[in-house]
């Protein structure tokens, strides 16, 4: 019997949340190395939501956001997207580049490349936590980045989801460096069969 994401029970969500925490821990370490500063990360929220509601979670479909998209291959296939609000992305780039935090210039090529790398590290950390816990082979692709309306960017993974169901797994992550907090969101989009593979490997479904 095939399994839909909205069929996930609390235990299964807890498992995914815990993987989120471990992944965030890995990501914080990687980011701290990159910044040469202490970075803390939390996974405050993990939820299953209808894709039409994701853009509301990001303050509306027209909100300007930065999205980093990776595709996933190996034992599971699908997509992973890391989304930052435009202002949060600016703060992050400013931290990375050692610039004043409130600076807001258009992103240049290097900024975009840095953001892409952050998305890559964070998504990669989540996926490697998932891989080591499940023993599955999970290979992320080279990331790609887009800066545009939340709705437009989210349409890409939403469409992938739309083929199979109407719900996505949404992980909100908060990272802080000193007193500066930046909130970013992950949207994990395994293909339908991959959800089962994943939950079976985690031992939460038989």
């Amino acid at each position, binding site marked *: 019997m095939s399994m839909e994401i909205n069929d996930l029970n609390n235990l299964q969500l807890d498992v995914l949340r815990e993987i989120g925490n471990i992944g965030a821990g890995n990501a914080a370490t990687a980011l701290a190395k990159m910044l040469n500063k202490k970075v803390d990360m939390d996974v405050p929220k993990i939820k299953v939501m209808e*894709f*039409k509601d994701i*853009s509301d979670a990001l303050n*509306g*479909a*027209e909100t*300007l956001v930065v*999205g980093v*998209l990776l*595709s996933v291959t190996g034992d599971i296939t699908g*997509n992973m997207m890391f989304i930052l609000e435009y202002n949060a992305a600016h703060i992050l780039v400013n931290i990375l580049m050692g610039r004043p935090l409130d600076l807001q210039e258009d992103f240049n090529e290097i900024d975009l490349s840095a953001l892409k790398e952050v998305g890559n590290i964070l998504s990669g950390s989540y996926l490697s936590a998932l891989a080591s816990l499940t023993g599955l082979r999970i290979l992320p*692709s*080279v990331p*790609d*980045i*887009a800066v*545009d*309306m*939340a*709705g*437009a*960017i*989210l*349409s*890409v993974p*939403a*469409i*992938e989801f*739309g*083929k*199979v*169901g*109407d719900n996505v797994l949404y992980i909100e992550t908060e990272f802080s460096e000193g007193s500066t907090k930046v909130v970013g969101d992950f949207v994990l989009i395994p293909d*339908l069969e991959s959800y089962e593979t994943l939950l079976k490997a985690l031992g939460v479904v038989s």
Partner: protein
Amino acid sequence: MENIIKVGMADLQTSCHPTILTTLGLGSCVGVALYDPVTKVSGLAHIMLPSSLQARNNSNIAKFADTAVTKLLEDMIKLGARRESISAKLAGGAQMFAFNQSTDLMRIGQRNVAASKEKLAELKIPILAEDTGGNYGRTIELYSNDGKLLIKTIGHGVKQI
């Protein structure tokens, strides 16, 4: 005062004059706007995928080009629109990410546009104008008084078709 009716992702709405039908942040999805200038009945669909036949879960008919266009037309006729005077405008179908152009996911914008056009041709609804493709998102507004379609973007200007 005109009513503004929002059309969500994988959603469709029809209305009588005076209204503005809008859908926000179209990316690879396609907005199909139908309008009858005689009765001023308008309809807008936010389509995500080309075909309901290729999907495992096809219960939402507004999601697919083949089923959404037909439903939109039917709903407009129920509101009094005259089938023979209805025409269409299209917007959206962008490719938001540059990589992996060969995969289906990345060409989905183009495929959505093609499927919508095919369905419109089959139903013999003329396409008056389109603003499709590119690599940027669009917010669109369909005005019931004259059927104009306003297209707003971030960094790529505002236009009217």
